[in-house]
């Protein structure tokens, strides 16, 4: 058996070697290669899957890349479409170069022969990234949806595993959230006929009915308190309308929204009058790293039936939180009065190490994924103590583009962010990763690696949605989840 394995392996190596072609008589180009994805000058973590790339120019017949480290070790990749680096050799190379850089020499074969470009650099960070990311994938539709699901991607390989797909029930699988990237605690919202919130606490999963007498609807956007006992939910009445001509085709907006605190120990959904005012829409809650502050965004509600959506501007706010008593402070502080800038703030996400706050800013509304102007901003936590006046200085200089940059999350060590962007074609959302150094400097983001990125992303008809890091495999029992969702039994949250 062993002999057979060696024979097959040797044959495979022989075939691969036989297929490769030496770069010869190459014309030396003075420019950097134009590649897809653009990995030139990116910063990557040790353990990331190989950054295979293709020539951006589709007329290339072959691409060849030699990755060299400072000690002269080399990794060679070549293919008709993509570099196809050997995954083990790739991991060996980057594991030997934390804090160092790699030089990538690219050659491409065209009809007129080989061209060799100026080498570019990939920086290998000492900061590790988490095990994987979990995201929703769905077609970027409007009213209807077909197949969608929550998927887990192991970042050191190209392996993607479905956690749950809506083919198992009738409905839409929606906002998922982990407690600081820990896969054991998870909240997952299901909409439609079998609507429920699945909660997994210490590995035990139950289906909840989150509508109580004290709340206006079902729980939607969750955020876990770092202590693990509480989950802050927004409760939203959401609508969508469509632009007839505007390039932002769609508007998703709330007609009303409140915040409510769920106490997992008492199974109580606690309504706080200050966070559930009728005249104000509060949404996108998140706790500070120490758990003592709740951040959220709020806007003045527009009159019922109004379509003056350009007048909806969310401000970044905070309120003190006491995890001992599960109670909030007496007053809300407005940290960023985006309204006065004719802007809107959404999705505040404090880093887990307490150093930064990242949010998305757009022209108006609370759903920036359909807004091409949406960008990411990052503010040092120390600057949140006073109202922010000059917000533009916090606009992230490297990660943003002219197209949408939106939903984002931090890795557990707060040195990496994952965010969604429509920079590639303006329609399909893709996941990008960027390194944030000690000083808060963002690095050039890199697209989530794939074995053959061009084929993968060209053929993928789905958008990525709500990405979040996880520290280990989620190990989700989808058959049990399906049974829970399809059954009529629900644990009723008690309103308080």
């Amino acid at each position: 058996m062993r002999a057979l394995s060696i024979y097959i392996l040797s044959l495979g190596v022989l075939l691969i070697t036989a297929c490769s072609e030496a770069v010869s008589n190459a014309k030396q180009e003075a420019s950097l290669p134009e590649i897809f994805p653009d990995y030139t000058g990116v910063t990557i973590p040790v353990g990331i899957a190989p950054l295979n790339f293709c020539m951006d120019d589709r007329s290339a017949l072959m691409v060849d890349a030699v990755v060299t480290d400072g000690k002269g070790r080399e990794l060679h990749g070549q293919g008709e479409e993509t570099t196809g680096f050997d995954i083990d050799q790739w991991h060996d190379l980057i594991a030997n170069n934390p804090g160092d850089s790699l030089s990538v020499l690219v050659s491409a074969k065209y009809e007129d022969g080989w061209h060799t470009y100026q080498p570019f650099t990939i920086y290998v960070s000492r900061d590790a990234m988490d095990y994987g990311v979990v995201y929703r994938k769905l077609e970027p539709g409007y009213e209807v949806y077909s197949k969608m699901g929550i998927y887990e991607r192991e970042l050191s390989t190209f392996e993607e595993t479905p956690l749950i797909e809506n083919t198992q029930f009738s409905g839409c699988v929606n906002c998922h959230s982990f407690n600081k990237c820990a896969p054991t605690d998870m909240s997952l919202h299901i909409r439609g006929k079998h609507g429920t919130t699945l909660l997994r606490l210490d590995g035990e999963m139950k289906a909840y009915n989150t509508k109580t007498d004290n709340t206006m609807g079902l729980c939607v956007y969750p955020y876990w308190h770092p202590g693990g006992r509480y989950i802050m939910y927004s409760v939203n009445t959401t609508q969508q309308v469509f632009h007839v001509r505007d390039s932002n085709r769609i508007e998703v907006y709330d007609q009303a929204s409140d915040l409510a605190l769920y106490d997992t120990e008492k199974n109580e959904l606690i309504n706080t009058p200050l966070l559930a005012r009728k005249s104000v829409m509060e949404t996108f809650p998140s706790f500070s790293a120490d758990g003592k502050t709740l951040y959220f965004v709020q806007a003045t509600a527009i009159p019922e039936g109004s379509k003056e959506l350009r007048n909806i501007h969310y401000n970044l706010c905070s309120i003190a939180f006491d995890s001992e008593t599960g109670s909030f402070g007496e007053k809300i502080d407005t940290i960023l009065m985006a309204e006065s800038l004719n802007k809107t703030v959404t999705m505040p996400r404090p880093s887990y190490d307490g150093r930064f706050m990242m949010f998305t800013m757009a022209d108006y509304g609370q759903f920036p994924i359909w807004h091409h102007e949406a960008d990411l901003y990052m503010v040092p936590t120390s600057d949140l103590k006073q109202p922010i006046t000059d917000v533009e200085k916090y606009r992230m200089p490297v990660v943003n583009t002219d197209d949408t940059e939106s939903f984002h999350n931090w890795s557990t060590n707060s040195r990496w962010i994952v965010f969604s962007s429509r920079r590639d074609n303006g329609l399909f959302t893709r996941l990008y990763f960027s390194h944030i150094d000690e000083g808060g400097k963002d690095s050039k983001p890199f697209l989530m690696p794939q074995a053959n990125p061009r084929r993968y992303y060209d053929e993928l008809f789905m958008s990525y949605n709500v990405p979040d890091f996880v520290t280990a495999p989620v190990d989700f029992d989808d058959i049990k989840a399906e049974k829970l969702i399809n059954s009529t039994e629900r644990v009723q949250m008690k309103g308080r």
Partner: protein
Amino acid sequence: MITKSKIIDVLLYASLLIFIVFAVFILCINQDVLYTAHERSEFLIGAHFFYDLMAKPFGLFQYIGGWLSQFLYNPVVGSCMLLGIWGLIYIVGGKAFKLKGSATAVMLLPIAFLLTSLVDLGYWIYDFTVRGYWFSQSVAYLVMLLLLWVARCTPRRWHLVWYVIGLGLYPFFGWFAMLFVICLILTEKPTWSEIIGIVLLVFTAIIWRALLYSDVKMEEVVMAGLPRFVTPSDQNDILSIPFWLVGVVSILIVLAGKYLANKFVPVVCAIAGIIFTISFMYRDNNYTAEMRMMRSAEADKWGEVLDIFTESQKPTISMVMLKNLALMNEGGILDRSFKMGNDINGIYNPDSVHVSFLEIASPVTYYNYGMFNEGFRLNFECGEQTGFSPIYLKMLSRCAFANGELEVVDRFVKLLHGHPYYRDWQPAPVAENVKELHNSYKDELTGVENSDSYVINSISCWYDSDSKVASEQALFFSMLRCDSRRFWASLKHYINLHQGEEFPVHAQEAYIMYYDKSPEEKKMRLPVSQDIYDNYNKFWATLESLIKSGMSQKEIPDKMRDEFGGTYWYYNIFAKKIAR
């Protein structure tokens, strides 16, 4: 002297010939359906589509079926492929079921069921979501028969191995794996080991689900691959009958094979197959006319659209909308549209599936009225629901191209280029009319409104645009809506923009009528042809006399149709209108 065996042969070959002629005839009269099948059948190149299908039992055959469906672009080629597969089913079925002489004709029955399954869909063709439908069942059945033939050529003691193989083939064959095992078991008196095989079979789906298909609902796993016609709002079990019958007849052939050696079997089978197909086949002139009009409209062949419409007696909403679109492009909408007819008729839809103008013609309509965002949204939604088939990819590309989103165009065009008949396809340049209409309206927010009435309402609001095309359309659609308030606003604008041009006939007709009957303040005095004026008076005089004569409300329109059917007044008073 005619021998008995010759009679048997003659009956067999005559029956076969008649059935073949019948099958060819049925495919010939359904060429438009087959072309539409290719347009509405999703097959995408690449790993995602492949793995998506492979993630479900029977996915491989759906993939193969999807690939073959591309050839229905040329319905003759597609028909030949189908006939070829069915021919093989006939031959291989005879071997697999060990049929001889007249008995082989019994294989005409499953073929008739498979043929029926292609021509009984009616309006489900626009709404069903079964990938690779047009070929997958035929190909899978053929492969199952091949396996059965091979299995039956092996010694009896090997059958247990074949049961295990059947179990192993379940991911690829779905319900045909079950059919294969049942047929094999029934070929001989079952032994204990075979009974164990049956028990195993019962658990096949459950075992495979636990191993591979946890993301598929249990009820869909058990009979995986058997087409089910279900949408969020509709369900039709009748359309699944031909496939159930394929299974039942296959089992019956195994059980009753020895009784089939009768000279009349071919005649009975051929007649039964023909009667079954005719009974279940969906046939309606408007159904195919809509398909032909859509095909011509997509290719911007507006003259053809008008020709097809002219042949129709009782057009549907989709046909009326496409005809008006053609008139916009060919010119003369305000002189010809009501003459050609805007009276709409419901679709013949015995299944009551919720299909409307939205699914049939609006992908093209939105684009051609310059409503690119709506067009993009609608095509994307339809693609999501029923698959990103060529029609949606083409219209998505055209809408994105018209919006200047070239990277998005690239996405869809690349997928289309994987299709053997669309390798060089590129979105056609945006027509000047379409550009002008698009530029003539302002951005606004709309709700979830996709319908014929939405198009009509929207366009009838374009009366304050400076575009000549838009002003003409606004005037026309205000007339179509019978909305006198918008008519006056549109007319004023139209007259300002079209100075020095002839006052179109239908606009004159509407002008006289609204001047005479509508309560709004008359702001304009326009010259009207004496003929039209006289005819208008005659219209009301005739109507009055018919009412006085005691003629019923139902009879009056019929009586007046010949003389006044082509006027705006007739439409306004009698026609069934598109919802406002």
